[in-house]
């Protein structure tokens, strides 16, 4: 095993680069009298350390995407931050995403970059790719135009892209190339922190493998922290140092990936892992009963209880707190019993 690929998290440093405290972000909608409040991010606290890949997992509309958008400061009405804070620590300076907009704007791309889902649409379709690099990165680099160009080309080569792509229009590139380009764009300034929203979803298996390797490569080289979202547990298994499981807007379990796959603490996590098919195994997989909760009207108590095989009376009334357990944290009244089940 290669030394740098140890699954153990955060060996290099333990100081947090991102602190999310009691973050609540709700969709507050009012359409012609239909008022709805969707608690997409409901009281989430987490920290991400330097040089760490933190994966966020959960099913669709669990709020994982809203969480990452809120962290990135990429929210638009009707999604609003209700309370809590998102703070980054760059160069010893603390930046509150929602209190220092100017400083945040200056820090973007230099310290903090973003890889979006659907790389198809993130690049301006009517301009050549090189303009995107110029617009996003030029002012941070302090280089002459030609030196900048050289730097960008070198960077692209390093991630396995022909610098010729700079002269292309986005739609001329394949999905895999675009996704690689998006990662190239996000890393050209060598930021400390990268936010990635479903970076490999909708990619073919071979390309996905390639892109994951690229992300890992870049991360190791730059020593950046990455927070990324995907519903695909196998992707988390492949590159996340730690994983946070979101269910119905809440963080229900968090822990080092190895430990989580070996011994999930929350019944939902356990189910997610158990339902994964694997080649060579045709034993019948059971699926989770019931349907995902409606965030506009979530279940009482533990939000997972209607679908939980271990649910007891207490789960219906009392919401379990997220408490440390083992190497991570878990929010479940019967956390100890999951592994046994």
């Amino acid at each position: 095993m290669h030394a740098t690929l140890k699954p153990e998290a955060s060996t290099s440093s333990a100081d947090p680069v991102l602190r999310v405290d009691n973050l609540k972000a709700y969709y507050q909608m009012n359409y012609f009298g239909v008022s709805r409040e969707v608690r997409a991010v409901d009281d989430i606290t987490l920290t991400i350390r330097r040089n760490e890949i933190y994966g966020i997992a959960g099913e669709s509309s669990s709020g994982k995407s809203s969480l990452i958008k809120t962290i990135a400061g990429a929210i638009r009405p009707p999604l609003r931050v209700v309370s809590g804070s998102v703070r980054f620590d760059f160069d010893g300076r603390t930046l509150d995403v929602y209190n220092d907009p100017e400083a945040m704007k200056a820090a973007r791309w230099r310290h903090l970059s973003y890889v979006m889902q659907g790389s198809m649409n993130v690049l301006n379709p009517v301009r050549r790719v090189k303009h995107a690099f110029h617009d996003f990165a030029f002012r941070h680099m302090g280089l002459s135009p030609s030196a900048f160009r050289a730097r960008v080309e070198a960077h692209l080569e390093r991630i396995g892209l022909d610098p010729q792509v700079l002269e292309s229009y986005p739609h001329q590139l394949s999905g895999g190339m675009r996704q690689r380009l998006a990662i190239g764009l996000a890393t050209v300034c060598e930021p400390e922190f990268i936010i990635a929203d479903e970076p490999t979803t909708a990619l073919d298996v071979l390309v996905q493998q390639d892109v994951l390797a690229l992300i890992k490569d870049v991360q190791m080289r730059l020593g950046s922290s990455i927070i990324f979202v995907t519903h695909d547990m196998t992707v988390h298994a492949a590159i996340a140092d730690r994983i946070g499981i979101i269910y119905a807007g809440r963080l229900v379990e968090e822990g080092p990936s190895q430990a989580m796959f070996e011994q999930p603490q929350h019944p939902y996590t356990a189910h997610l892992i158990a339902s994964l098919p694997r080649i060579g195994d045709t034993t019948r997989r059971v699926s989770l009963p019931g349907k995902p909760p409606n965030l506009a009207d979530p279940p009482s108590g533990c939000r997972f209880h209607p679908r939980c095989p271990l649910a007891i009376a207490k789960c219906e009334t009392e919401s379990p707190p997220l408490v440390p357990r083992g190497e991570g944290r878990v929010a479940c009244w019967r956390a100890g019993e999951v592994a046994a089940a």
Partner: protein
Amino acid sequence: MSALLQLDHVGRSYPVGGFFARRQLQAVKDLSFTLNADRPEIFTIVGESGSGKTTTARMILGNEVPTSGVIRFLGQDVAAIRSRKDRLAFMAKVQPIFQNPFEAFNPLTTLDFYLYSTARRFLGLRTRAEIEAAADKALQHVGLSLVEVRGRYSHELSGGQLQRIAVARALIPSPKLIVADEPVSMVDASLRMSIVNLFRTLRDDLGVTIIYITHDLSTAYYISDRVIIMHKGDVIEAGDARAVLGNPSEDYSRALRNAVLPPDPVAARRIIEARLERRRAALTEAGT
């Protein structure tokens, strides 16, 4: 043995490219296989994007016409079915399941309308009660009931539920063949297995043959009877699913097989690590 579906050296090419540089893309090349009418099975087509698997599905459904070869369904040339009456008769026997359940249902149309329309058009039912009974019966097959669906819109249900409703709708005319194009790729992992399990039930209990089109080798392995692996329009490998997927013989199939990330951090990391090593080696080589 009578053939339910027979593809005989089927090919399909498109003009592609932009305004000034057009060329022909051979999306499917010389594809042949036969499904037996007497023995229902799950026949899987595995391939990445651009492999031609979706084009194949569209040709089988009659949405596209092969540029070469013939597709016969119960002996009839699919491409020759033109009149609305014949189309309806054909559609009663061959039904699709689409990739994205949120896309497959118009968000502004209630879900039950699809069920009712199918029942009315293919079963010739007229009264409200008959139609609802048919819809309910089909929903029961997928573990739902009309009460849960009536008057609902697609956004009110989860992807897994929608996909099951899509299956139920396809079942209403008692089709012989269901063509499912990437039916689980947009469904959450936790719900994916419920759909896949459903296909098994359909095959075993209702005797429906299913063409399952996917890029996901693990679910393909999980439910398929037979499989073909396509790459850039060509069939790379074909045969019994367990044999082909468990132990692929062609390079491409093997690469595909090896790219599947296992749900195990140690093993998964090893795959990424190996890929990374190759990348670095390639870059170093290029650098020197």
